[in-house]
């Protein structure tokens, strides 16, 4: 379980960082700047959460795996 969670968080970290880079590189019209900023902040929060999950996984404790699993996005129905 820990290995799967670690791999899935590392994958997600890569995706979020690519998304942040793409958002920052994309020019937007002034009217959309607040929405653009909101998206960048949301992605930064997500990156922070993923880093947190990875740090918690490094603790090597099985008893907090349910919490880490619950913090991971799951595929929709």
């Amino acid at each position, binding site marked *: 379980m820990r290995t799967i969670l670690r791999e899935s968080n590392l994958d997600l970290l890569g995706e979020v960082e690519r998304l942040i880079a793409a958002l920052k590189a994309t020019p937007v019209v002034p009217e959309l700047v607040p929405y653009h900023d909101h998206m960048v902040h949301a992605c930064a929060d997500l990156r922070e959460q993923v880093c947190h999950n990875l740090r918690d996984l490094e603790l090597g*404790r099985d008893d*907090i795996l349910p*919490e880490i699993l*619950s913090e991971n996005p799951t595929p*929709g*129905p």
Partner: protein
Amino acid sequence: MTADWLTFQSFQRNQEVLKAINTLSTHLKLMLSGIADEERTQAADHSVETLRAFLNELEAAACQADRTEPALMLGVDPRFREFVHDYLTARRDHRFRSRLFTGPIGDIKTLLSSNAPNDQEALVECLAELRVLVEEHMSDDVSQILGAI
């Protein structure tokens, strides 16, 4: 307010509650094992306040549901009304065994303030079962949101 918007609101609130559950539960488990977990202390304190507010709302709505028909609960949005219904059904059916589902909700608010290890262990058990119910409710929100899209 449209049903879709209420579902979005419900999803957002459930996400906040779920985050609070996970943060506090992780913090308590580490603390009970003798790990200081200072990095998460501030977030855990914030989680306590989030959960206290949520439990206040759940307690008020559950009291109202005891007195009246669920459909007549005043000041409670339909999605939260469904959550209250699920909570009361889980209590009635003895689906869970933590104090959140076997005793008064007020007891859990007391546990949130306690530093006693026994109380913290009981709180971890309550949080684990509350997480199950919240995740089920969120799953319904996601189905409705994706269905709407």
